[in-house]
């Protein structure tokens, strides 16, 4: 089965086609360009270069969150359109799980982390081993401080590897405690091939039911502002 995967959940964009565990094609860009403008041409060029056509794709996979507000909408809208037009099923893949797939073969704990700003991260945890990934923690949006507490439970299980665009942030914050590692950059970002690999284990769903899974940030509860005093006076 050929799965076409797309990731635009963060600052990078990536597309891939995987057939029964074999990566047939993959593209990746991380140059701060707008996904809405770059992703479709990249996908088209990749398919053309690999002599693949949309008609031969059996299913479409996309990272459905957590992640960037606009980025998730771009990826999901694209996959919805492609799958609907081809009348093929979709897979919504957790961005965290896709990130963890970068290190699926190592032995240790993989902690994906995306920078959600204001000292917050989207994160999860997976135990990686010879049989692949076993989930330890559900996807969540927490403060860096809270992640620090969770690390206490992970470190005794083996080396802890940070992946994701917030990996470096976490590593810099926590490396003094030991037992945590930062893989090289080419293994840290969300790759569409990983999205396809993770999708292989999921149940397909129709394009219409695919929705972004935004996670509520802890700061959402807090007031942003100083506004109350200034607002009464103006407007």
């Amino acid at each position: 089965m050929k799965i076409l995967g797309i990731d635009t959940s963060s600052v990078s964009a990536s597309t891939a086609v995987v057939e029964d565990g074999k990566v047939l094609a993959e593209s990746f860009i991380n140059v701060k360009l707008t996904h809405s403008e770059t992703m479709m041409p990249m996908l088209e060029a990749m398919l053309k270069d690999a002599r693949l056509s949309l008609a031969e794709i059996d299913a479409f996979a996309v990272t459905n969150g957590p992640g960037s507000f606009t980025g998730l909408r771009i990826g999901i809208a694209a996959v919805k359109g492609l799958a609907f037009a081809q009348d093929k099923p979709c897979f919504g893949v957790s961005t965290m799980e896709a990130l963890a797939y970068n290190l699926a073969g190592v032995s240790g704990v993989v902690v994906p982390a995306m920078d959600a700003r204001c000292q917050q991260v989207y994160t999860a945890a997976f135990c990686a081993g010879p049989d692949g990934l076993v989930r330890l923690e559900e996807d969540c949006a927490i403060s860096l401080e809270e992640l620090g507490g969770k690390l206490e439970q992970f470190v005794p299980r083996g080396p802890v590897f940070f992946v994701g665009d917030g990996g470096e942030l976490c590593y810099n914050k926590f490396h003094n405690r030991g037992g945590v590692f930062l893989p090289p950059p080419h293994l840290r970002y969300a790759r569409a091939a990983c999205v396809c690999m993770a999708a292989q284990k999921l149940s397909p769903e129709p394009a219409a039911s695919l929705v972004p899974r935004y996670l509520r940030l802890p700061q959402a509860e807090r007031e942003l502002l100083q506004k109350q005093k200034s607002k009464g006076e103006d407007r």
Partner: protein
Amino acid sequence: MKTFVTHTAEETEALAQRLAQKLCGGEVIAYFGGLGMGKTTFTRGLARGLGWDGEVSSPTFALVHEYRSRPPLYHFDMYRVTSFDDLYSTGFFDYLETGGILAIEWSENIESALPEGCVRVSFRRLGDEEREITVEGIEL
């Protein structure tokens, strides 16, 4: 921190054009000061200074206007943004990653989410046309 007094909208635009010359992309320009202070006029000056000669208007209803200058300028109005969820769903955090310049009206509303090192521009009304404009966070 430096304070300027402008006497006409043209002078406010000219001051913003001077600021534009100091920007190279990735900066956040946070405006403080109420309605009718010249924030949109100031932003027009920024856009002109960055080489955009199209329309510049207040994004009160659209939340953000994009001007295809170089670097691109993203003009936000946070007047109706009252929660962190609102802010997230404007795409604000995504725009911070683009390398463009963000100009933000009603920064008062998102004070705690403004990135460190942002440029603060405060407006004070002195007369019908006269404004006192204070620029912090960059040398003008």
